[in-house]
């Protein structure tokens, strides 16, 4: 028996292709169809056999790697709301409350973002690239759960249109679209994005704020680690992620699981992640060894730095976006290491921007083509010329 869904697409095909009535909307029809049914046209030119990996699979793996942080983020939002309400909630309740806050953000991000994608696809008459499947989920994960939904819509619009489509769409963008959107919100609406995240519970019980770990400083000669401990940020908590913060970034553990999935499947280039963590750790050790600053983050040491804030999230999921990262291997090492370095420098050097990683990645995105250019020049000079 024929699959009814397949029948539907077969029946509607004449409307959208060739001289069909809705020819204009072919990309939308195509994207919907190929979402359900993997396209399988015959090869026309050599090689006649092809690998099974395509962009849909590629992006699906990224989504898979994002699932741990997403689910944990949902749970943690509920959990923090519970703390905000001064009660201890059951796991299910945490999940449900968390989902109540987070799912609308994700939905708005996807719906608004896809609307833009469809619009550009129809106007430019090309097929819809799968890249947005990832951007649409990455973006909400970088936001605090209490963000107003209209800001979500605005941010993703900015990310898709300015971060990607003005460059010519997926594959041509210089910046990571999700981060572009976030940076836009960060600078336009600093209140909703600031380090003092209003935890989700404020709607239930007003006036509870939670400062994120990165905005803590030790007062009056207290060391930074002690101050963090007093504020409820023990290293264990920061590692597992039961702390307030943006939806996806709090759990170092889940980010590492995601990074592992990406590296094992070779979807993300391990050079960026390893290089990034190495650069980051080395820089934190160096600033740790520089005397002074007992009470500030410069003295927190690599572990606190790694587990607090969004570095692991950024280096695993944002920096590894292949389009905006360099395309050469030496370039990737440098790119990763520079992000790690810059993140720490921004964190310690300018406490006003606690989230150094966002700026570090965007900054290095801009330099990625230059890194590639230098590597290519070098590589060309090493080849036996053949002209």
């Amino acid at each position, binding site marked *: 028996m024929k*699959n009814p869904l397949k029948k539907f697409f077969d029946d509607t095909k004449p409307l959208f292709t060739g001289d069909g009535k809705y020819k204009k909307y072919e990309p939308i029809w195509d994207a919907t169809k190929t979402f359900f049914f993997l*396209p*399988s046209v015959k090869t026309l030119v050599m090689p*006649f056999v092809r690998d*099974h990996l395509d962009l849909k699979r590629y992006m699906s793996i990224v989504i898979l790697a994002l699932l741990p942080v997403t689910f944990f983020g949902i749970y943690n939002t509920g959990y923090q709301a519970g703390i905000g309400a001064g009660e201890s909630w059951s796991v299910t309740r945490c999940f449900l409350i968390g989902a109540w806050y987070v799912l609308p953000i994700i939905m708005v991000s996807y719906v608004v973002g896809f609307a833009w994608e469809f619009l550009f696809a129809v106007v430019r008459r090309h097929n819809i690239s799968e890249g947005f499947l990832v951007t649409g989920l990455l973006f909400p994960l970088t936001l605090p759960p209490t963000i107003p939904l209209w800001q979500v819509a605005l941010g993703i619009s900015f990310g898709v249109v300015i971060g990607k489509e003005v460059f010519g769409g997926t*594959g041509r963008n210089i910046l990571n679209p999700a981060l572009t959107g976030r940076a836009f919100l960060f600078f336009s609406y600093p209140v909703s994005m600031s380090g003092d995240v209003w935890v989700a519970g404020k709607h239930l019980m007003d006036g509870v704020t939670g400062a994120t770990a990165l905005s803590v400083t030790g007062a009056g000669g207290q060391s930074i680690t002690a101050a963090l401990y007093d504020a409820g940020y023990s290293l264990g908590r920061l590692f597992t992620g039961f702390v307030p913060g943006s939806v996806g970034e709090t759990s170092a553990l889940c980010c590492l699981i995601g990074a592992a999935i990406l590296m094992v499947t070779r979807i993300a280039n391990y050079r960026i992640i390893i290089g990034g963590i190495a650069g980051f750790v080395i820089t934190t050790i160096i600033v740790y060894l520089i005397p002074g600053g007992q009470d500030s983050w410069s003295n927190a040491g690599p572990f606190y730095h790694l587990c607090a804030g969004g570095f692991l999230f950024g280096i695993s999921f944002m920096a590894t976006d292949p389009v905006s990262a360099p395309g050469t291997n030496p370039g990737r090492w440098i790119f990763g290491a520079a992000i790690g370095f810059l993140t720490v420098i921004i964190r310690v050097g300018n406490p006003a921007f606690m989230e150094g990683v966002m700026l570090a990645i965007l900054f290095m995105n801009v330099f990625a083509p230059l890194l590639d250019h230098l590597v290519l020049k070098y590589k060309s000079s090493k080849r036996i010329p*053949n002209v």
Partner: protein
Amino acid sequence: MKILKIPRGFDLNVAEQPDLSCTHLALPSSLGCCAGDIPHIRPKLLVKEGQRVNTGEALFTDKRDTTIQYVSPATGQVKTVIYGPRRRLMEVVIATESEDEYVEYDPVDLNGIVGMPRDELVACLKKGGLWQGLLRFPALDCAEPDHSPAMIIVAMDGNDLFSPRPDIILKDNIAAFEAGMAILRRFSNRLSVVCRESSLEGIWEIGRSVAEQITHTAPDIYPAWHPGAVLYQIKQQAAENNSWCIRLDHLVMMGRFLLSGRYPVEKIVTITGPGERQPHMRVRQGMPLSALVGKIPGNSLVTTGRFNGRILEKDAHIGLFENTVNIIEAGPGEEMFGFARPGLDKPTLSSTFLSSLFRRPAKMDCTLHGEERACINCSYCERICPNDLMPAFIMKALHADDLEDALALGLMDCCRCGLCSFVCPSKIELTQILSDAMDAYYKDKE
């Protein structure tokens, strides 16, 4: 003997290996001389439909060098002349007669080959329709006899994973092989004879003297044994860029031709496809596809090399440069939620399907498994390229019309193995883009 190492390539386990036995196929009612598989040629027809030709008589030539001839594999009437797009000559089909009448030349023995003036040798091979077996890098056009190449690579194995085994080609042809090597020595004193690791044992068994001349073995990772990949592995200076290469079966044909004075009409062909393993086949040059394979499963593709051959239509004839026929099925069609399946049955060089954990025989099909998208800079193509190229960057340079950059990045080192297109998740036709650019550049320079 040196062992070549190739850092990357296609090493999936593909079933479908042909059987090592060899059967003889009878003379079919028609044979063809094909121009479709000859690189760069501008064919010029020399015969008319209805004209009777002898075996070894010239059918068409190359406008660029009319001394090179492409000759008839059979005796009989010219049945049809088939043209392709833009009236490019594709095939000359001969209705065969059961008895061959050969165009006869004076046989030359080994000493004769060594003693003969070089011009005469070249003229003889050109007239005999065999000179074109010698190809010149980088564009793999016919060798130019007045060049002295830095090196000649003799490839014992063919272009496909399952091209005929050298020991089967060499059977009863050892003398011809020696004669062929003697011819090559007239043009270069550096001969690199390369065979696949797995072919070596068979060659030792068939003839010590042949095996002792092998200079390099290549691992069984496609395309390690391709002349282009081999050249890249062993070349040390730019002068070697214009080396020559020849495939074992052409070398043997040259030798046989000189030793016997007749056009050698035999060739060994392998047929791979799903289902039963087929034996090697000893057939005539220019066999029609229909006589080689019985029923072709509907919807499948028939090619002469799964990575770098051409598509054979139902009525096509095998060309001089082709000695393997792959029947590739179309696969299961559009799968629901194909992107989310675990994929135990989906062979891949990436690690994104469960199949990558097991080395089960891979079932390849002839579909694209996706749609073309913009390049996402993933470097999969770089990771697979046997010749250390970065196909994505070369492609971008070409799109920006920056030929200088593309050349500096090694465009002309591409051996057209097809692996970059094979792996690209965005389904970009990298090999075709590079290959077209190489040909265009070569044509410009000529």
